[in-house]
């Protein structure tokens, strides 16, 4: 039997947890956002007539950052990249590109046009990721707005209204109306005697009213915020019916809908025009000559005065001796190389687990979403495909590429299926939102990061418990962050506490180069 909770009981429940003022404060949990002040100008010593050799293992964003910055200061850099491409998890697929998922390699067959691309890895840049943005500016990488939040996109859950897709604006407006009404009523009844002055209470009430779009007396009777049923321009608008709050409460997705566009995923977001890998191309315009492709590192031997590296290219084993080495190869792959790292360093690498994010995309034969007033943004579904992303660019062109699935936490579900099964699952899920989906989409690509060659994961997982890092985990992290012998640095977002962001990969590289810089200055002083 379902037991119903009255509004009053609900408020008592909230009150029991922390009292009303604490409950009001609960919304500021977003304080988890990391702080990036203005981009840091790296003050690194320029070598001048001195010469130093550097090996960069992996042409990911972190590695390229090192090549770019140290190159400016006269270091002689070599980038060894196992794959046929640089960029690692910054991966844009276009016509003809190989998706190197081992066991399921496939080529992208999208039409060959600038707007027909898919960002299989990094796709969004928060406007406060300053170091990344500074590089985009410095390297002439054109940026544009990424539309993440779109109130016209849908929310779909089989448990709600018989599975009928609901516009996000309808969802949010009704939830806010209900919550606002509840708050407004409780305020006037309880007089809110304690923590507020009269003026504060008045202002709070006004916030609550506008939050919920309430009538006089704190009633929620529907709102034009989610648009009209009909009319509104040349004729007067007819208001939509209220969606019963209890209907919306049938979905477990509620929290996700209300906070999806907050914090690091909140507007304004940016993206590189015509594909995120234009950031990589920007770096390669400067350091491209230093990259050896299909050069797979096999051994790392740290000595007292340098690092000896072996790598395989064209079936031949090569060696490279350098003064310093910066390594952005994922830790779970470094453990499979021959090395002479200290035991505690290896222990830390063995501890880190790998994530299994999964993405898929379709080419759409026509831009059907635009006919439903959708330009960019994200539809959220309570199924395994989870999301449909509509492209921010290419507006009103004939075709477009849409993200058909994005499963960040539970990607193994699709990863463990065949290509055909994956695609069928995304079509079935998408059909619930767009009835003709099956006939509107074609040319799928799927990107299972757990199996992408030379990656085998989407991001490092350092802490095992949701409640945060243990002291032991912090110790392992600190160990792995420090260089071995002052010679070998692990870099990449994997060696930050904020994994899976490009900004983190860059900041890890900066951390390592500043550490190196101290040593070099001391040595040359």
């Amino acid at each position, binding site marked *: 039997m379902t037991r119903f909770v009255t509004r009053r009981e609900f408020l008592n429940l909230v009150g029991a947890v922390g009292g009303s003022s604490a409950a009001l404060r609960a919304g500021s949990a977003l304080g988890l956002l990391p702080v990036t002040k203005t981009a840091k100008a790296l003050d690194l010593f320029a070598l001048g007539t001195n010469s130093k050799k550097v090996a960069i293992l992996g042409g990911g964003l972190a590695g390229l950052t090192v090549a770019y910055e140290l190159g400016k200061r006269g270091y002689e850099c070599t980038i060894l990249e196992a794959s046929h491409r640089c960029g690692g998890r910054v991966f844009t697929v276009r016509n003809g*590109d190989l998706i*190197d998922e*081992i066991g399921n390699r496939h080529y992208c067959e999208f039409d060959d046009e600038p707007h027909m691309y898919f960002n299989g890895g990094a796709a969004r840049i928060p406007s406060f990721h300053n170091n990344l943005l500074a590089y985009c500016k410095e390297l002439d990488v054109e940026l544009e707005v990424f539309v993440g939040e779109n109130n016209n996109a849908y929310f779909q859950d089989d448990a709600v209204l018989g599975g009928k897709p609901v516009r996000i604006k309808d969802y949010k407006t009704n939830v806010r109306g209900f919550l606002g009404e509840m708050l407004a009523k409780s305020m006037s009844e309880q007089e809110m005697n304690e923590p507020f002055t009269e003026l504060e209470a008045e202002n709070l009430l006004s916030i609550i009213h506008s939050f919920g779009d309430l009538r006089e007396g704190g009633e929620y009777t529907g709102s034009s915020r989610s648009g009209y049923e009909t009319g509104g321009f040349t004729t007067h608008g007819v208001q939509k019916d209220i969606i019963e709050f209890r209907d919306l409460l049938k979905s477990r997705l509620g929290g996700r809908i209300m906070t999806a566009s907050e914090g690091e995923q909140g507007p304004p977001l940016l993206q590189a025009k015509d594909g995120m890998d234009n950031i*990589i191309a920007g770096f390669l315009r400067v350091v491209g000559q230093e990259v050896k492709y299909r050069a797979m590192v096999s*051994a790392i031997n740290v000595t007292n005065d340098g690092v000896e590296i072996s790598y395989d290219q064209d079936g031949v084993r090569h060696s490279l001796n350098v003064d310093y080495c910066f390594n952005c190869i994922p830790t*779970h*792959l470094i453990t*499979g190389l021959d090395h002479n790292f200290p035991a505690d360093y290896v222990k830390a690498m063995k501890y880190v687990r790998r994530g299994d994010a999964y993405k898929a995309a379709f080419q759409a034969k026509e831009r059907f979403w635009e006919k439903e007033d959708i330009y960019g943004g994200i539809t959220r579904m309570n199924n395994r495909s989870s999301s449909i992303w509509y492209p921010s660019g290419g507006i009103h062109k004939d075709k477009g590429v849409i993200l058909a699935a994005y499963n960040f936490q539970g990607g193994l579900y699709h990863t463990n299926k065949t290509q055909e099964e994956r695609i069928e699952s995304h079509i079935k899920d998408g059909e619930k939102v767009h009835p003709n989906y099956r006939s509107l989409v074609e040319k799928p690509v799927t990107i299972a990061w757990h199996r992408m*060659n030379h990656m*085998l994961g989407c991001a490092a997982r350092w802490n095992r418990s949701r409640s945060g890092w243990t002291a032991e985990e912090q110790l392992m992290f600190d160990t792995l962050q420090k260089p071995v012998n002052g010679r070998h640095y692990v870099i990449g977002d994997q060696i930050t506490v904020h994994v899976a962001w490009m900004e983190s990969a860059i900041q890890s590289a900066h951390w390592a180069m500043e550490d190196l810089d101290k040593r070099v200055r001391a040595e040359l002083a």
Partner: protein
Amino acid sequence: MFILPWMKVNAAEENESYDDRYCTTCHGADGRGNYGVQAPRLAGMEPWYLQRQLENFRAGLRGVHLSDIEGIAMRPMAAKLTDESIADIIEWVGSWDYVPAEITIEADAGRGAQLFAQCATCHGADGLGNETLGAPALRGQNDWYLVTQLKNFKQGWRGNGDGDTFGQQMMVMTQMLTDDAAINNVVSYINTLGRD
């Protein structure tokens, strides 16, 4: 060369080719095994055993049970291999030197030795295996991997497939390993074999 911004500026060549020699991404440099991906050492593996396992994975005799997490990771890697590819891979794997894996499990090797007396009938007293009996070498293999296999056989997650006669034999043998401690003991004894 002038390159349009949307062209594949960072690809080494157009329409990338690929081959089936991708095993070292998971199995480590020169197939020495990688704990980080739980993929065992292949270097030094007998060609007949390597072939049978690849064929078993391909045929769905191994790596199909839902609880066999690591086997499930390996199976798609073999699913699309042709006979020619398998032959090529066997030749490639044969070019890697046998190097005994790092020891990570230390338990009661003395008790392990007693347990191993039975195992030796098939796997040989020196752990070198016996082709006639279809039993592979065990010495020098990654110890964490041996543990996974013994647990998987014991649970019936490996060796239970229709027609997997070799796997079934081994499944039966794990019943004498009554608990995790016994498994660790016998593996730590295997760790003493073939170290030079």
